């Protein structure tokens, strides 16, 4: 151990005052966005001095919101603390500006690394140390370069040129420059290769050994539970479970939901149900729905391959899931298929028509429709207006007929509205058709997006994380709805999801991507057992988690 392992100067003070009191105390925290969307409800959390506390949960559970509340950056996202308290070493963090929070000793490493790409590594570190006193900075820099020797080597390089793993290390190093007593880490393993994840985990363990307390937010439950002393599981803004990490790792609920354990059981019974639907539904117009054949698809961004040689086939009328770690290229694949990204090589043929040469609106006219990961609705418009946009390709009223209110335009609008109301009823949106979309809760907004995609009467529906931010109950309802849509309309569905229960329950075929390449393809049960998939995505606990 080197001289730089000297703990931050203020830890001496901590050792003297209140050993029993947790360093960070969150009590009954309520956070809302734009005054209406409740992101956190009554969350209570304790982070004892010198420990690593993990916060787990799926997308939209509120983990990032929790960190934002602590670091004081809620206003940037339009959020505010509605109730509850956050206390750090006895001080109320609640209304402090971010700069003050940093000076108090709490520093956050944001999600997605967020390095300053145009600044060099050294300048990034310097930015991180701005809040600290000058004499502390030199020590901090020493410490940082010892933890991350590779950064010392790349000190003069622009941060944008570093690899993902190196950027993550830079982001952590940057935060350490302020010599924090409490380090908040937002999903450090996001989109990193397993070996890199292990390196980061080692670093976090070392940081903790040096005396810094860590609050770790992670989707990769295996790694988080490995590192942590205690853990909390957030679901839809509430603390669903909490306790010592070892206990939680063994808990069946955690294994099922976050370690992808029990989905196999569900998958088997759902497959039987699917088989039933397939045989006795004679109305399904399979012939009308073409096949999507993706062959050797490659997408590159300035030299970096986001997708490399990916191939899969979506059989007519089937549900095909695309899974993999964040940054694996799943959204890139959807974007390439819908003409948003240009393809570097390979082909995607829908009913024999080559998609990669067409502009997005032409692909839409072939019957391909999609939803987005980050909602892209018109917030001020009503639900009805948003859904009507989905009918665009079925309409013909132009500038002349609409502007002059010719009868043709009026008739068309009436017919479109009928269709839209039908879809709205299917998705239980009839009651809110006349309300502005922005006033609806997040789950309802996601349903509006799905409804809009359905209004286009697609034959191929692409869903980008449809269940993100939904509670277990909501996502089960959504899965049933998707299955129903497929059964009634007979359309093909290609979906991206992290929620393993959701995927395994309704998918016929699963393709697994990692680093832009396909690493597995097959039925849900096959894929779940595939060792490559387990290693890259589902997680290998360094100790046996499953018993």
């Amino acid at each position: 151990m080197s001289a730089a392992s000297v703990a931050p100067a203020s830890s001496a003070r901590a050792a003297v005052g209140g050993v029993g009191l947790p360093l960070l105390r969150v009590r009954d925290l309520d956070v809302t966005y734009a005054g209406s969307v409740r992101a956190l409800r009554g969350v209570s959390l304790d982070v004892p001095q010198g420990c690593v506390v993990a916060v787990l949960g799926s997308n939209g559970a509120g983990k990032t919101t929790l960190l934002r509340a602590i670091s004081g950056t809620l206003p940037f996202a339009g959020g505010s603390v509605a109730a509850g308290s956050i206390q750090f070493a006895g001080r109320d963090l609640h209304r402090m500006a971010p700069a003050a929070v940093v000076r108090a000793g709490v520093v956050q490493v944001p999600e997605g690394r967020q390095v300053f790409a145009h600044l060099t590594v050294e300048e990034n570190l310097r930015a991180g140390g701005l809040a600290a006193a000058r004499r502390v900075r030199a020590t901090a820099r020493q410490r940082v370069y010892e933890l991350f020797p590779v950064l010392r080597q790349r000190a003069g390089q622009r941060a944008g040129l570093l690899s993902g793993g190196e950027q993550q290390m830079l982001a952590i190093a940057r935060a350490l420059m302020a010599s924090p007593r409490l380090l908040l880490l937002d999903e450090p393993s996001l989109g990193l290769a397993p070996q890199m994840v292990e390196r980061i985990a080692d670093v976090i363990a070392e940081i903790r050994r040096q005396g810094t307390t860590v609050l770790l937010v992670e989707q990769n439950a295996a790694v988080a539970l490995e590192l942590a002393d205690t853990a909390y599981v957030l679901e839809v803004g509430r603390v669903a479970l909490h306790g010592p990490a070892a206990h939680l790792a063994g808990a069946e609920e955690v294994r099922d939901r976050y370690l992808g354990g029990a989905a196999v059981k569900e998958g088997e019974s759902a497959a039987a149900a699917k088989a039933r639907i397939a045989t006795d539904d004679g109305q399904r117009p399979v012939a009308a729905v073409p096949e999507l054949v993706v062959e050797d698809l490659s997408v590159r961004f300035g030299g970096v391959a986001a997708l490399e040689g990916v191939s899969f086939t979506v059989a007519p009328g089937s549900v095909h899931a695309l899974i993999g770690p964040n940054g694996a290229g799943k959204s890139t694949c959807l974007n390439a298929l819908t003409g948003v990204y240009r393809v570097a090589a390979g082909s995607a043929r829908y009913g024999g028509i080559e998609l990669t040469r067409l502009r997005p609106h032409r692909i839409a006219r072939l019957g391909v429709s999609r939803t987005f990961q980050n909602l892209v609705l018109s917030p001020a418009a009503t639900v009805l207006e948003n859904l009507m946009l989905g009918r665009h390709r079925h309409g013909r009223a132009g500038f002349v007929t609409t502007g002059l209110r010719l009868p043709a335009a009026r008739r068309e609008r009436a017919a479109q509205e009928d269709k839209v109301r039908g879809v709205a009823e299917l998705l239980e949106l009839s009651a809110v058709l006349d309300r502005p979309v922005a006033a609806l809760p997040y789950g309802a907004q996601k349903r509006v997006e799905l409804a809009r995609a359905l209004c286009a009467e697609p034959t191929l529906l692409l869903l980008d994380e449809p269940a993100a931010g939904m509670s277990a109950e909501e996502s089960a309802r959504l899965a049933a709805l998707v299955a129903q849509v497929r059964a009634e309309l007979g359309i093909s569905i290609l979906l991206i999801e992290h929620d393993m229960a959701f995927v395994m329950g309704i998918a016929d075929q699963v393709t697994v991507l990692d680093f832009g390449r396909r690493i597995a393809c097959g039925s849900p049960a096959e894929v779940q057992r595939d060792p490559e998939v387990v290693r890259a995505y589902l997680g290998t606990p360094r100790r046996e988690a499953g018993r």
Partner: protein
Amino acid sequence: MNQFVTLLANGVSLGCIDALIALGFVVVFKATRVVNFAHGSLVLLGAYVIGRVHENLGFAGAVLLSVAVTAVVAALVGAVLLRRVRLAEPGTLAVVTLGVDIVLATDLTRRIGTDLLTTGDPWGAKVVTIGTVHIPQTRVAAAVVAVVLVVAFLSVLRFTDWGVALRAAAERQETASLMGIRPGRVAAAAWMLAGGLAATAGLFFTAFPSPGISGSVGQAALGVAVPAAVLGGLDSTTGALVGGLAVGLTATFVAGYQDQLSFLGRGFGGVAPYLVMLLVLLVRPAGLFGGKETTRV
């Protein structure tokens, strides 16, 4: 040939002044994402203060006072007014600066009235002769001052804490605040800097051989800042410099070869920079050095 070299020399020196104006414009945009349509009025304000007080305080004193006053006014506009509309659309913010510009320009024009204000600079109408090339002394001084200021500014930007903070905040505001960087302070400092640059530019913009300090200076300055900043890329300081030089050279050459270019119409010199700007945008939609926006869906 002689004419060409003279025009080149004068164009470069005018370009230095234009670069100063563009730099102030770009500093504000870089730090706060606001297109400051009031920048021209700030230039006029700087010139006006010098014009009014140089007889009492002497030239040096007038310049110092002008820089101080303009910096303060700029900071007031930026910090006070625009912080309140932080959540508004960028178009709205631009229109707010338009409103400020109207108020400022009208008041300054009224105060100048029919007075003939001069800058009272020590170089007057003297001319420097190098070989057969004649350049007004004010222009030489302008070029020297501009180079010094630009080098100083770029050094500050690259080497000091504040410079790092500004660049970090310009790139990612929320992440920068996680580091303890206060976007409000960074913005206020950027506005003050813009004000100081505007005042200095105002001095040279209205000195010989230009006709003097009048209400139209504001419009003229904005008419330089916009094409220069846009063709260089709104968020690039290098772009502002290149843009300023391009605009100065264009204006000088067009005016110099006016006879040969008479078919393009009278007064083409004022419009030529905009034409150059449009041509650059056709090839590079974000300006020569502007950052490319990426869409994340």
